[in-house]
C-alpha cells in the first residue's frame, strides 16, 4: 500500500483491494509511521489524489456536447511533455491518473504512456468512446487498471446525447475489452433524454461485461456551453427523482456484487432529496463520496500542460511540472477551494455541505454567473422558491 501523510492522518492506497482509504493519525501510528513535518505544518492544503490528464485534443467523433471542444485537428502534446507531467504527478503524491482528451486511444503511444504512469507508481485509467478501436489496439490497452467507455444508451438515446449514433462501437468496445480481461466501466451522461433510459442502459452495459456504471451530470463546458445546455440538462423533476432512482438501480443491479454504481462529483447535490442520507450525512463521507473537489483532491492537466481545478474549468497559469510546489499556493486554485469557508444559504445550513461543497461550480458559473449554490440542486431550487 502507498501511504501519503495528511494533516489529519494519511491517505492510503491499497493494492490488494481497489480502494483509497483515509485513516486518522492513530491508525498511521499503528502502522509504525509518523507524519512528522506534515502533521506539524501550518498549511493543511494538500495535493490532489486524482488527476485527469488530457493527452490529446484530437477526436473525430464530434460529440455535440464535448466539454473540451475536441476536433480532428486538435493539438497533441509530445510524449516527453506528458512524461514530464507524470513526473510531477508522482512527485505530488498523486495516486490515480485518468487519461482523456480528445480521444486518448488515437495516440499510437497510449500503451507506453500507461506503462510510464505505472513505472512512476501511478495507477493509470482511461476513458474512450470506443470509436475506431481495432481488436489489436484494444489488446494494447491492458496496461490500464480500468477503462471506461462512453455509453449513454442504445442507439437512439446515444444519438440524442452526442449527435450521432456511436452505440454499436461503444458496445463492441465494452464487450471486447471485457473479454480481454480489462476491467471495464461505462460513462453515462445524464440528460433529459438519457435519464429515462438509465436502467436499460446500465443493464445492457452489465450484460456486455461492464463492471461499473459511472453516472455523469451534463455540464456546460466546451461545446456544451451554449443555450442548448438548458434544453439538454436534466429537468427539475428528473433531478428530484435522481436519488430514489439511484437507490432503485443499486438494488436492481448491484446486489450480486459484480456491478457497481458511481456518481460524479456534480451529482452529489442531487442526493439532498434522500431523507435517509440527509438524516445520516456522515455515511456520505464514510463511504468516500466526493462532491466538488476541484482544485483540492482533484485537478486536471490540459493539453497545453497547465493545471486546471477540474477538466471543465479554465486552466490556471500553473504549469503541470510545477504542480508539486505550486498547488497549495496558486491563487486561482485557492478560489475554487474556499467556497466552504463562508457558503451562503441554503448551502450554509445543508447537512451534506461538507461533502457536496456547493455543487458544481461549472454549472453555477454558467447559469448564475458566479461561484455560488448550485442552481440545479433540488434544495437550492426549493429555497429560492421560498419553500425550503
Amino acid at each position, binding site marked *: 500500500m502507498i501511504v501519503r501523510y495528511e494533516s489529519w492522518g494519511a491517505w492510503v492506497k491499497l493494492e490488494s483491494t481497489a480502494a483509497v482509504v483515509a485513516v486518522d493519525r492513530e491508525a498511521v501510528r499503528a*502502522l509504525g509511521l509518523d507524519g512528522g513535518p506534515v502533521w506539524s505544518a501550518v498549511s493543511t492544503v494538500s495535493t490532489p489524489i486524482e488527476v485527469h490528464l488530457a493527452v490529446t485534443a484530437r477526436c473525430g467523433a464530434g460529440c455535440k456536447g464535448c466539454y473540451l471542444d475536441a476536433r480532428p485537428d486538435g493539438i497533441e502534446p509530445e510524449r516527453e511533455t506528458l512524461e514530464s507531467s507524470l513526473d510531477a504527478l508522482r512527485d505530488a503524491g498523486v495516486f490515480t491518473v485518468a487519461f482523456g482528451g480528445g480521444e486518448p486511444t488515437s495516440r499510437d503511444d497510449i500503451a507506453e504512456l500507461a506503462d510510464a504512469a505505472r513505472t512512476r507508481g501511478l495507477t493509470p485509467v482511461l476513458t474512450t468512446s470506443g470509436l475506431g478501436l481495432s481488436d489489436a489496439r484494444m489488446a494494447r490497452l491492458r496496461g490500464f*487498471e480500468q477503462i471506461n467507455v462512453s455509453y449513454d444508451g442504445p442507439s437512439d438515446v446515444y444519438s440524442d446525447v452526442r449527435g450521432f449514433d456511436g452505440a454499436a462501437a461503444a458496445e463492441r468496445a465494452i464487450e471486447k475489452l471485457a473479454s480481454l480481461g480489462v476491467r471495464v466501466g461505462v460513462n453515462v451522461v445524464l440528460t433529459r433524454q438519457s435519464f429515462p433510459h438509465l436502467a436499460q442502459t446500465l443493464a445492457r452495459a452489465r450484460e456486455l461485461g461492464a463492471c461499473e456504471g459511472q453516472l455523469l451530470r451534463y455540464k456546460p463546458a466546451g461545446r456544451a456551453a451554449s443555450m442548448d445546455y438548458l434544453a439538454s440538462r436534466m429537468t427539475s423533476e428528473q433531478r428530484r427523482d435522481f436519488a430514489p432512482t439511484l437507490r432503485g438501480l443499486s438494488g436492481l443491479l448491484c446486489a450480486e456484487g459484480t456491478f457497481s454504481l458511481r456518481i460524479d462529483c456534480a451529482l452529489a447535490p442531487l442526493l439532498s432529496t434522500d431523507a435517509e442520507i440527509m438524516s445520516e450525512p456522515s455515511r456520505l463521507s464514510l463511504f468516500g463520496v466526493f462532491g466538488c473537489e476541484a482544485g483540492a483532491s482533484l485537478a486536471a492537466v490540459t493539453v497545453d500542460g497547465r493545471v486546471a481545478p477540474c477538466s471543465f474549468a479554465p486552466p490556471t497559469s500553473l504549469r503541470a511540472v510545477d504542480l508539486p510546489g505550486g498547488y497549495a499556493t496558486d491563487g486561482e486554485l485557492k478560489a475554487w477551494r474556499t467556497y466552504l469557508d463562508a457558503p451562503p444559504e441554503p448551502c450554509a445550513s445543508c447537512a451534506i455541505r461538507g461533502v457536496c461543497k456547493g455543487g458544481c461550480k461549472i454549472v453555477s458559473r454558467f447559469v448564475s454567473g458566479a461561484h455560488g449554490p448550485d442552481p440545479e440542486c433540488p434544495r437550492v431550487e426549493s429555497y429560492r422558491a421560498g419553500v425550503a
Partner: protein
Amino acid sequence: MSESSDITKEQVLQVRLGHGANCSSIGSVVDTLFATATVGAAIFAAIVAALASEPIRVVRPERPREPKGEPES
C-alpha cells in the same frame, strides 16, 4: 512497517472503493451507501485486514524535488 497493526474500524475515516476511470469528473461508488449495515461492516473489516497486511511505501509530496531513498518499510 510496524510488527503488528492494531488499526480499528473507527480509525478509518473514509473508504473510496474502486479506481474509476472517468477522465472528466471525479466519481464515487454509491451502491455501498445504500447497502445494509452488514455489507458496510464487511467492507470496513476487509479494509482493516488489508491495512494490517500489505507492505508499506510512503510517498512524500511535501519534498517533491529531493532525491528519494528506498521506500520505507
